[in-house]
């Protein structure tokens, strides 16, 4: 996932202490699987939405990474979006937010 670093900088994330590089080895691959498979249960494997909203980069364009990170961590009360804080660290949630904004790292 080192390829993500230039993009992180492009998104002006140098301020945050966490970068993709800080994830434990192998963790990025696990998170990618989580996004595609487990998030995909509601948002679709292609992330174009379902019961959950459309998470493709063109749909998320303009959303601040901090906003998305907060949604991953704390969910959206009143909707089926659950808080992932019990399962993910802030760094991991931010990695997922960036992954979505960038359309993954292909």
């Amino acid at each position, binding site marked *: 996932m080192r390829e993500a670093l230039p993009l992180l900088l492009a998104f002006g994330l140098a301020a945050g202490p966490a970068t993709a590089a800080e994830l434990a080895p192998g963790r990025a691959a696990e998170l990618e699987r989580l996004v595609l*498979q487990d998030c995909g249960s509601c948002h*679709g*494997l292609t992330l174009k*939405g379902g*019961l959950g909203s459309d998470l493709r980069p063109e749909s998320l364009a303009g959303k601040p990474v901090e906003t998305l990170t907060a949604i991953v961590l704390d969910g959206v009360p009143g909707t*089926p979006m659950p808080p992932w804080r*019990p399962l993910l660290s802030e760094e991991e949630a931010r990695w997922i937010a960036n992954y979505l904004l960038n359309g993954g790292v292909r």
Partner: protein
Amino acid sequence: MIRLTAALCLVSALLPWAAQADTLRATGDLGVVVERASGSLLVVDQSDRAAIGRVEGLGDLSHASVVFSPDERYAYVFGRDGGLSKVDILTQSLAARVLQSGNAIGGAISDDGRLVAVSNYEPGGVRVFDAATLDMVADIPTGSKTIGLVDAPGRRFVFTLWDAGETWIADFSGGEAATTPPAITRVEGIGRNPYDALITADGRRYIAGLFGEDGLTALDLWQQPPVPRRILAGYGRGEDPLPVYKMPHLEGWALAGERFVLPAVGRHEVLWIDSRSLKEVGRTKVHGQPVFAVARPDGQQVWVNFAHPLNDTVEVIDTPSGEVIHRLTPGPAVLHMEFTPRGHEVWVSVRDAGRIDIYDTRSFEKLGEVAAESPSGIFFTARAHRTGL
């Protein structure tokens, strides 16, 4: 798959089509497995405990489900991307495919096998297709995401509106679907955010689970019109519900003797309901948040799988006592379980291990494995003859 005997070969040689016995195959012990990541369907043989083929090109199959034609030859696959595919199990090929919406969530086939209905998130509503050609014969806009679509006796489909909290009954018994619009019965007051529904095997009761409030809503489809009845009101989501990382499913409903089993939402419990009074008669504490709670066909056991992150485990509950009598850990991400029609074996999909495990349901001995690409739903052809499946 039991091969025909040589004696039959002699008989078949006299028939005009002169089929050779060893080229014939029946589909009664076959099934299909959804391979969600690769958009393919694995064709499996229950008796051989093996895969016999694969059909590819079915699109986004996350959350895909399958129903069968009455002759058990065709599998209709409802994909997440709105794709409706008709797969020929015998030739293991795609017989027809339409992209009928932007985003679909499931489907059903009418009791006469002539109509296939799909429920849509985007643009919402239900669309109905000719089962032979996949030509659209009816479009039922609802202005809402639709969930819990099932077939009901009398050429009817029943489905529920996530946003509006209504259940609609679309009756196609009036004539040719292409020229005669269905008679629609709208039942209001189902509740907040119904997320899934089931219909009992006799086609009488339709029960919708609610995400937005504590409880479920039952309809008696023998009533004209059905009157919603809230059941298990306040069963406990209000007391500190857990985050729900995967919505439970009700379509694998379990009638175990005279009781239903339902997965609770946001709790590590399954709920037992008396099938006549619809009152809660007990609970069983389980390993995690249940996703499927499915009864072995004889009703003596209920097998339960769980939501992420506790989804490497399956528990077996003994119906008479309500106790967990066995725990299996097949591997990472157990998504679905399907019993052989008489219940002697169960197939379990282990998504992240890339395989299906087959167990004896009495000894719990593992009998075999079948390799599959990120397998999710397992569907055996016997479903062709059951209402609501």
